[in-house]
């Protein structure tokens, strides 16, 4: 019998794919680059350096806010989040706390029972990434290429009640980021990082539990779902034994498939937030905010519905094609190029899903030609076909014997041989018929 219900909130960090970093002009494209080559006094936190705001990042954050149905603030403030860590060049992270850029949004997800639910977005705020540590034996190396790369943190209300919702939310968020072109949202590369706050309460209990377990540093959807499932079990067991649960941070051990304690409440940080004195408050006019709405074309969920309606695609095809905005665009370009060829939208969808063309290289028109020629059937003359069939049967007498003995599989072999000899795409049914006739 189910005694408890789950209360989960998600915090997602999305790394923006802007040209330059959040507070300096270094390139933000750091992935796989020689360590400490994308750095300057600002992102190295050298004495005397000062931050200045990257407008492109703020615009991306506003676009994210729009996509998540947020209220975008015309006034917002950067604050300093103070803590010590070797990858944090300045000894504080420039973030937003009391006055975030985007607040009160929502996004619809699917639950385990198939029903739909709105997840409320508390905020989406702008901040900067830290450097990266790598440990080699007793040595630790710091790469500051990532230091100062723009991040947007998206925080939900504790509205999730099952892991299907979490998975759907993360997938949708990823699709949105790609669709509006603000981030690659690749989890393995760390473009998108999830943190879950998990707690449980007695069914019917109105107030939030007085603790929450933070699950951190988990770099795939699958692991996150597994960690949350594990936590729900672990917490339920403890609670039913009458034990008290505590505020703590836990990580995921993929080998053992368990969560483990990283930091208890006693070690929790006091971040000593205060307004960043080096940056003036941000003022954005309602017109500018509205203008950035125009920059957003169509969100994945809307594209999916449109594909189903306009192209009569099934949920499956439409979902695959709208996972990535580039792929969805490619699909529509191919449709456009295939006008008057008699190739239907469903055919195009299936060809794209099955053949997986390299959409960066294969031009839509060329892909149409490929589909076209694969469908094209050479109208071979009856006499010519019979001659070739005869020749094939003579050359493959053993196979013909097997066929006569009822070995069906050799039939396709013989068909293949005939087609090869013709050297063109011909109707296989005709070939089968011709073979059948000749053998009789």
């Amino acid at each position, binding site marked *: 019998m189910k005694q408890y219900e789950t209360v989960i909130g998600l915090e997602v960090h999305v790394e923006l794919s802007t040209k330059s970093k959040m507070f300096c002009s270094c390139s933000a494209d750091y992935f796989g680059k020689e360590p400490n080559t994308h750095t300057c*006094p*600002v992102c190295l*936190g*050298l*004495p*005397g*350096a*000062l*931050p*200045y*705001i990257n407008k492109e990042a703020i615009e991306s954050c506003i676009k994210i806010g729009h996509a998540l149905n947020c209220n975008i603030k015309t006034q917002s403030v950067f604050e*300093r989040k*103070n803590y*010590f860590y*070797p990858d944090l*060049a*300045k*000894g*504080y992270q420039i973030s937003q706390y009391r006055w975030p850029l985007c607040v009160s949004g929502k996004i619809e997800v699917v639950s385990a029972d198939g029903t739909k639910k709105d997840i409320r977005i508390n905020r989406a705020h702008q901040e900067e990434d830290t450097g990266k540590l790598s440990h080699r034996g007793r040595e630790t190396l*710091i790469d500051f290429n990532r230091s100062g790369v723009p991040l947007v943190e998206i925080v939900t209300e504790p509205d999730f009640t099952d892991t299907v919702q979490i998975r759907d939310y993360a997938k949708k968020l990823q699709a949105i980021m790609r669709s509006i072109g603000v981030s690659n949202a690749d989890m393995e590369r760390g473009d998108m990082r999830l943190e879950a706050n998990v707690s449980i309460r007695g069914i019917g209990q109105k107030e939030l539990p007085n603790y929450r377990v933070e699950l951190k540093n988990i770099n795939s959807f699958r692991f996150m779902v597994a960690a949350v499932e594990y936590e729900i079990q672990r917490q339920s067991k403890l609670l039913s034994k009458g034990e008290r649960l505590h505020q703590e941070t836990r990580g995921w051990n993929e080998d053992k498939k368990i969560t483990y304690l990283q930091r208890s409440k006693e070690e929790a940080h*006091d971040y*000593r*937030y*205060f307004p960043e*004195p*080096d*940056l*003036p408050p941000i003022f954005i006019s309602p017109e500018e905010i509205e203008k950035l709405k125009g920059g957003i074309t169509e969100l994945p969920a809307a594209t999916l519905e449109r594909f189903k309606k306009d192209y009569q695609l099934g949920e499956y095809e439409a979902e695959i094609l709208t996972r990535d905005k580039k792929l969805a665009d490619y699909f529509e370009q191919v449709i456009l190029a295939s006008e008057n060829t008699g190739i239907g939208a469903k055919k195009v969808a299936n060809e794209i899903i099955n053949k997986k063309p390299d959409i960066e290289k294969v031009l839509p028109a060329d892909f149409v030609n490929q589909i076209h020629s694969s469908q094209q059937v050479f109208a071979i003359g009856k006499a010519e076909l019979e001659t070739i069939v005869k020749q094939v049967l003579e050359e493959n007498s053993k196979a013909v014997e097997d066929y006569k003995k009822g070995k069906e599989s050799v039939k396709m072999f013989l068909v293949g041989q005939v087609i090869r000899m013709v050297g063109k795409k011909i109707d296989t049914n005709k070939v089968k018929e011709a073979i059948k006739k000749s053998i009789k």
Partner: protein
Amino acid sequence: MSDITSLTLVETLSALNSKEFSKKELNDAYLKRIGQIDPLLNSYLYVNRDSDKIPAAIKDIITVSGMQMTCGSKILDGYITPYNATVIEKLMTKDISFIGKTNMDEFAMGSSGENSAYGATKNPWDITKVPGGSSSGSAAAVAADLCTFALGTDTGGSIRQPASLCGVVGLKPSYGRVSRYGAQAMGSSLDQIGPITKTVSDARLVLEWISDGDLFDSNAEKTIFTSKKRLSDLKGLKIGVVQLNENKSDAGLDLSVLKTMEDAYKKLSELGAEIKEIVMPSFKYSIETYYSIMLSEVSSNLARFDGVRFGKSRSEFGLESKRRIILGTFALSSGYFDDYFVKASHIRSKIKKDFVKAFVEEKCDVIVGPVSPTVAWTIGEKVDNPLAMYLSDVYTVPASLAGIPGLSVPCGFSDGLPVGLQILGKYMDEETILNVGEVYELATKWHKRKPDL
């Protein structure tokens, strides 16, 4: 020429122009004098023997590419900065070279120069006295003719107070007048870079050179400061004098300093100004307000010196730095933030309002008063009493909190030690305070007196 080093910046430029001496002779003269005099004063932490243009001294908290930058701290001992501050870039286009980095209180935290990890700077007027701080080396070097001019930084009085105690001119520009890029931050919402010079017209010239912001300091204005008109007298100007509290001892104002001030007000009046007493009710909270905000910002600004980079461990921080980091960390902590930082921010806006009232409603063109409640004190006298040291900032911090410009101009002596007159102006109106300062300076010639070294 034996007295090249006694020339002002403006005089030096004109002498170079008329080829009275070469830049090499100029630098040789200064380097020679530094060699003779500075061992007494300890105003330089680093001397650049390759200086070959007009030699300026730079407070060792401002980055000059390829030179050391210690900020007066052991924690940065041996640190060479790889880039130029904006002010340095701007000066380089004006034929300035940098003859040395000057001594200072560690991370600009102190009012006496005694908090330097490299030994206290001495006052050129009496080497048993402090030169003030934190731009102690810059002020002492200008007073002792060891550079044509110097740059300092002022967070709560660190340009004006040592200028006053050393008998030279010090200008704290309006917050945002000069880019802070390249100056290690102390109180980021208060810090300004400004000139310490031999005369007011020198300060005016240097401000023209270093103003006009940049891409880096988001709080700096992209406008070049240019002087439009100079005055021959003060006719038609209204000068506000802050009414002192009934118990004057509150501010610890020396009677002899008060007497010097009253003479200065009299002089300003003779020069044509209308003197008006004004009331600034919020001033009595300014020390507490200033320290709450500054300490909070300090604790965050110094966090990067975590012992991971820059070579030295945190135990190398001096006592005052540690004190301020701990106090600031406390002030920002959850549960205290509202009581200290937030409350201080509210009072800060009240102080701004008091200034607006004086400048707009009372129509004052400038406000004058003392820079420091006392003249230079004996080295060691206040080191064990940090609170007494903090209180000596009482006259300089209100302008810092309001972000308005302030000028210190020599206005006499008390017991053979210089006294400075502080002239405060409207936000971004350095022009008027420089005009008033210049008229006063030309009429009194206090700046002509030199210490006997």
